[in-house]
């Protein structure tokens, strides 16, 4: 479906920003950029840190507002940023539809919005100046492709998702399914949520192994935390003899440092997808500042999230979270 996107990868659509400002640029010290996102996981924490670091380098002020995964609250936070008359907003939307009216209000108030690491629906794109960063769907797609590769295009698979209803979980699951659907030899047995918790991933995997026994050939997880939880369950099942060692292959979206090391060691954990928050944050913030400066920026600055497995792990940088 969204495979077209792949072909357009990195093809920065050269739509010129509507806010081609004419006035002279503001001095850096007077610039304030707002960041609206959910500070609920290590990836976001690393993003936050990188955002602060970049702001320091650019010499600008930032306001960071966390909506704790609550969708209406993100709209509230956007309005709070509008009330403070920030110069631009970097938004990691936690819902691609519900956030649009608030985005529109910011747009109407003359505040440029840069989307990072997520999109809004088509109907809202006109209120957004630029979009940067990777894409959850593609991350999921890559993890699915990787699993298909590990299984040789054939086998039975379960998908472990994050918290039901969160944008990253929805998109990654869909991406994963889209990739697996390309391989007719692969059957998806079930998909269950884990709330992004390792312990729950372990519990769920244990139940799935009880249910399917050695019928499971692969697990496609939404992030490395989930993968690692699932691996604990697999290890225990191997010890108790219900599952053959290294039979089940696991891949996931969003690589963590621990996942990286585990993949390196070899075993069930086949590979993961890099989603480096540093570049993401830096790109988003720099783009915002360029817009404030009156520069013309590409509407879309998409970049590829590379998948890796043990085979090419040495060429892959270690995630720092």
């Amino acid at each position, binding site marked *: 479906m969204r495979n077209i996107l792949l072909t357009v990868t990195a093809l920065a659509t050269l739509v010129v920003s509507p806010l081609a400002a004419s006035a002279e640029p503001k001095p850096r010290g007077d610039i304030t950029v707002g960041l609206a996102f959910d500070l609920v*996981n290590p990836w976001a924490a690393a993003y936050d840190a990188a955002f602060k670091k970049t702001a320091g380098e650019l010499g600008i002020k930032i306001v960071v507002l966390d909506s704790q995964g609550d969708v209406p609250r993100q709209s509230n936070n956007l309005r709070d940023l509008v009330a403070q008359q920030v110069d631009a907003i970097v938004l990691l939307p936690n819902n691609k539809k519900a956030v649009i009216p608030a985005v529109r209000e910011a747009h109407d108030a003359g505040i440029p919005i840069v989307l990072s690491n997520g999109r809004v629906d088509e109907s809202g794109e006109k209120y957004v100046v630029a979009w940067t960063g990777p894409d959850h769907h593609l991350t999921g797609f890559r993890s699915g492709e990787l699993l298909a590769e590990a299984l040789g295009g054939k086998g039975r698979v379960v998908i472990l998702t994050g918290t039901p209803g969160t944008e990253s979980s929805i998109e990654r699951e869909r991406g994963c399914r889209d990739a697996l659907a390309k391989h007719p030899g692969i059957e998806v047995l079930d998909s*269950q949520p884990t*709330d992004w918790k390792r312990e729950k991933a*372990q519990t769920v995997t244990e*139940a799935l192994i*009880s*249910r399917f026994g050695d019928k499971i050939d692969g697990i496609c997880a939404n992030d490395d*935390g989930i993968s690692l939880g699932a691996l604990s369950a697999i290890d225990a099942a191997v010890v108790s003899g219900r599952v053959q060692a290294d039979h089940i292959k696991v891949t996931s979206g969003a690589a963590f440092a621990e996942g990286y090391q585990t993949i390196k060691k070899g075993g069930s954990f086949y590979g993961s997808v890099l989603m480096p928050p540093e570049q993401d944050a830096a790109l988003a913030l720099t783009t915002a500042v360029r817009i404030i400066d009156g520069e013309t920026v590409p509407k879309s600055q998409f970049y590829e999230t590379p998948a890796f497995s043990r085979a090419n792990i040495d060429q892959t940088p270690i995630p720092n979270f």
Partner: protein
Amino acid sequence: MFQDAVLGKSRLAFQRLGVALPFLVILGLVATAAPTLLEPSNIGQVLRQSSIVGVMALGMTFVLISGRVDLSIGSMLSLITMITIDLHDRVGPGVAVIAALGVGLGIGIVNGILVGFLRLNALIATLAMLSLLQGATMIYSNGRDLTVAAPGETWFAFIGRGQVYGIAVPILIFLGLAALLGFLLHKTSYGRRVFAVGGNETTSAFSGLRAPLIVASTYVISGLTTAVAALIIGSRVMGAQTNTGVGYEFEVIAAVALGGTSFLGGSGSIAGSVIGVVILAFLQNGLLQMGLPYYLQWIVSWVIIILAVWTDAASKRKKVLV
């Protein structure tokens, strides 16, 4: 209120059976749909999975019997797990375990002071603590997850992953603590005081009991059991996430309520809570094994919990005068 009061002790045995009975029927039905549910290996697994909620439910039972509630346990679980894992690699597993218990004790004391001595409303005060401790977890870890560097080389693994005579250590901890705390609640003068304070605080004060201290002490127990749960979860995962404990408070309360402990205080039992915990764990596992989508699992749990409590309430009513 009348029923709860009357049934507080004398009919507890019956009452417990009352909840368990419809559940056993339902479980039977679930098991026909998911035959693997009752395989010995799965039973062991479910019991082990239930131990985390279970250990916390033991502490919650004390709090509920004293007529209060503790919503802060979810965040507390996250924070203590985080501290434990952090200290494990920086200082060593021994210190980490002691620190975990110490932090659980400390937070329990704070909760106890707020609710017991300052007499703040338990629901809102511990809700506030829920938010506060979640923030503390984030600040402590700077939002990062932590993992034990060498999970294969620490005796800490024994707590969550070990086995004794083929029985998982978490089950032993759960049942051992259940026996210990059951003894404390039902056989000691302290336990009697907890029942008395929950049953009637004024009478307790008039009888020379130190009600604030007793209420506070139940929070300390809850803090300590949460710390033990944190050790199990930390050892099982060999890591800590900032969201480790999110939502646990409701699961724990649901299990304890299912076990027949009254929200009005003054009645309940450890055995009931253990049964409630185990029932809930089997239900969740069974529905998962039936292959229901998650939302159907939620709906079915809702219906089943209501039906079970309803049957129980109806059977209670029949047995009681007016």
